[in-house]
């Protein structure tokens, strides 16, 4: 079968679970025909699709199979090592987002990723990038391989860019987020993001992430207007490029969160659009539920007592056939859901980062007409 014929299984399907299913059908077909190259490539496509357009859990499940298949066909290793390592990189990046995986297991996984970098002749830039991202995102002061975030970042910068490095836009976004989250230096961050904002570099998730990172920074520094200005850009981009339910829930959750402090009706619209049910990725769930909690907290402040919602959780005791919920109750409900994940991550990571950001109270001065907007 030609590649075009395999592509016929999924090329007309939209991104997300549907396309994943199509790629899987093509993969089964290629597997049955023992078309090794097609199998190796389709595994890659599946993981790429699931990583960016779903919650990444299925990638995690399919990757061991992919790795085993790759190793069983050494004659194709040179040609496909790039694909396998990119998938490994995505897997290592998303593994941390599942609270079920302990820190010990994570470090072992990272270690193995580093070993594969050596084995397949890649440098450790992407490995150190994973490390600083991990430590920063989960509030880890150190890890067995690095004393702190700054050291991991320094080690990353010492490694030259190679095939496993991010594309230009990704590298620029990465540096931007380092300045925003670690150094908290807005000027440096804007400098790093210059190419992104001028439109000179872009990729499938940049400038999307960049806008959210700046919004996050402003939100935490109490500048709600600038936070919202950035978040509106991000909302457009996520709606446009990641419409599939269950994809990019972490970022969509952050958008709902920030928007709800400024324009609660737009936040409610966004929430309804992406309300999807629970995915397997704990970080995605945490941020989406935290967004929902902030949304109903702010809706309650407007004096609204009830809200019409169709919850996807019909088996949940909170579900009401009337679809009308008390704002205060639904707020508590989502708080508890976010808290579940916050507790799980904090317990795993030995800190209180997730609980802190869930319980932190935010207060902003908003002009009256904007609030009503």
């Amino acid at each position, binding site marked *: 079968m030609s590649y075009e014929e395999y592509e016929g299984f999924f090329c007309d399907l939209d991104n*997300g679970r549907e396309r994943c299913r199509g790629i899987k059908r093509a993969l089964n077909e290629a597997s049955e025909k023992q078309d090794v190259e097609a199998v190796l490539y389709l595994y890659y496509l599946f993981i790429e699709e699931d990583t960016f357009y779903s919650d990444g859990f299925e990638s995690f499940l399919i990757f061991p199979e992919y790795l085993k298949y790759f190793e069983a066909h050494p004659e194709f290793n040179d040609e496909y090592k790039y694909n396998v390592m990119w998938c490994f990189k995505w897997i290592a990046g998303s593994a941390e987002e599942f609270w079920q995986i302990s820190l010990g297991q994570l470090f072992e996984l990272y270690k193995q990723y580093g070993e594969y970098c050596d084995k397949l002749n890649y440098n450790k830039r992407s490995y150190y990038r994973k490390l600083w991202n991990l430590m920063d995102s989960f509030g880890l002061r150190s890890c067995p391989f690095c004393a702190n975030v700054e050291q991991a970042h320094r080690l990353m910068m010492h490694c030259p860019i190679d095939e496993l490095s991010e594309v230009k836009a990704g590298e620029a976004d990465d540096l931007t987020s380092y300045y925003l989250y670690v150094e908290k230096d807005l000027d440096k961050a804007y400098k790093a993001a210059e190419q992104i904002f001028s439109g000179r570099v872009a990729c499938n998730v940049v400038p999307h992430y960049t806008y959210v990172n700046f919004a996050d920074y402003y939100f935490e520094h109490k500048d709600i207007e600038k936070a919202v200005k950035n978040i509106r*850009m991000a909302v457009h981009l996520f709606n446009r490029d990641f419409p599939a*339910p269950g994809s990019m829930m972490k970022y969509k959750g952050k958008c709902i969160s920030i928007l709800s402090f400024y324009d609660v009706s737009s936040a409610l619209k966004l929430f309804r659009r992406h309300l*999807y049910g629970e995915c397997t990725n704990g970080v995605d769930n945490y941020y989406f539920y935290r967004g929902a909690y902030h949304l109903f907290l702010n809706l309650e402040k407007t004096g609204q007592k009830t809200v019409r919602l169709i919850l996807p959780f019909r088996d949940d005791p909170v579900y009401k056939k009337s679809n009308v919920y008390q704002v205060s109750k639904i707020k508590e409900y989502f708080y508890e859901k976010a808290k579940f994940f916050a507790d799980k991550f904090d317990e795993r990571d030995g800190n209180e980062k997730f609980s802190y950001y869930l319980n932190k109270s935010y207060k902003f001065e908003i002009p009256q007409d904007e609030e009503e907007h």
Partner: protein
Amino acid sequence: MENDFKFKVNLGGMIDILSNHLYSSSDVFVRELLQNGTDAISARLTADKSFSEADAKVEIEVEEGKRIIFRDNGTGLDEEEIHKFLSVIGQSSKYDIENSAASGDYIGRFGIGLLSCFMVTDHICVRTCSYKQPDVTLEWIGMADGTYTITKCSENISIGTEIIIDNNKTDKTDSTVDDYYNCDNIANLVYYYGLFLKYPVYTLSGGERTRLNLKFDFDSDKDKELCMTMGKTFLGESFLDCFTLRSPTGLFSGIAYVLPYPVSASSHNMHRIYLKNMLLTESGEKILPEWAFFIRCIINTNKLKPTSSREDFYDDEKLERARKEIGSIIADYFEELDMKNKELLYRIVSIHSLAVKSVIASSDELDDLLLPYIIFHTTMGDMTGKDILDFGSTAFYTTDENQFRQLAPLYIQRNELLINAGYVYENSIITKLAEISRNTDIIRLTDSDIDFMLDDSEFDGDPAADKLLKLASKILRKYDCKASLKEFRPFEIPALYTINEKAYQARQIRRSKQSANEIFMSMLDSFESNIGSSAVACLYFNTNNLIVRKLIDSDDEEKISCYIEILYVQSLLSGHFPLLNNEMKVLNENLYKLMMY
């Protein structure tokens, strides 16, 4: 000690970066020169009262294979302006004027456009005569290494500027450079970039003078037939329909076209988006709402801000406003169709189902209008939202396509409605439909609904049936699956396997463990142990089915055990569940046992 230092700039290198790396293709030098020419004319119309728009023109003379001369009768430049504007990178003669009231007439912003000519030549010659000194003609020659000369010409040209580009590029890395020195190719590029420029653009070649651009006013009302013809000519499609795009705040104007075939959200449609009548981009991703992927458009904008390469727009508040306005215009268009041409609206929704679903998912305002037109896949065939709203009884929906496939035969037999809401946006759309529904109860299917839908078996309490159930429960325990006896149609289905999301996950994890190395195995174990008791899988035996009845009547426990495992694997296969290694083995072993019996 504090000292001020200045960077040293390698001018040749800078020119190389700007001319060879800023732009995506060498073609843009034509656009840059057209822009310079039209901007100079706009400037002269403002500054020189004796000059009228009727006299304005840009001429391009091509000496085949050798030379191109771009000529405009704009303001021209005096010596001071040449030093200031042609020889300082980043300075534009338009800059000073930009803050004035006339700024709207200028396309360029950066003063680096001329450098793009270095992509096709090694030196640029500019002859210019300023309207302020009509008897002085100056010649500026700029080299790619960053040096330039200015001399006074003995022969005068008329007011305006000539840019002369010779085919002398020594670095022929770009093998297509020679192609630019051809009149037809230049005409095609003018046609591509400058079709709607407001001043006439001509080519002069072999003594022939040809006008290349059209007189076209984006802001005026246009005949629909003309618009459709334009769509076919410039976008290459016979569109389903078109409508006018006019910004209420003056940000843009143009025409939107409805594609006659479905496209996916990730497809990249070609548009024609003009900035001050000069083509800026063919990509509409930034200016169109994310859900408008079924639309193609020809738009002109005078107010949006281009990026430095002038090949896209800055993501700023104006762009966001333009997007919103375009969204509202499309919504108004749907509203008008709903009133005047329901048939066309139905056709559009049928073809662009996904896009329309996306519109509904993004906007509450259009729910009432568009929901009735949406088509859903159901156990009663394809039904529109209106059909479902009028159904009048209970309608179940599932957001799991696999579950729909498994259960559809049962619902069909019972003549009950099950809606497949497993595609993108449908979860959100069906919930919206449920919200507005008055006659039909639209309910999400749960495990208890499935259990409830299957009738109690007439064999309940029968000792032989109980025996079968006990044996089945014991055998299926090792597959984390419960057993139950029920009655359902069609009779031909002996057993139905149902599984909730958690149990499905557990199956996937077990499958993954078959290939996992030590590290992945330990992580998968952690996942599995955290799934907990909420994972439920059940095999319903259909006591209406002859095989199951035979099993109830049989006393041969060993034989029954074989059949139970075979029915288990068979129902997995008919539910499209990928088999685990041991399940395939079980099927083969049991078939073999029965053959040997």
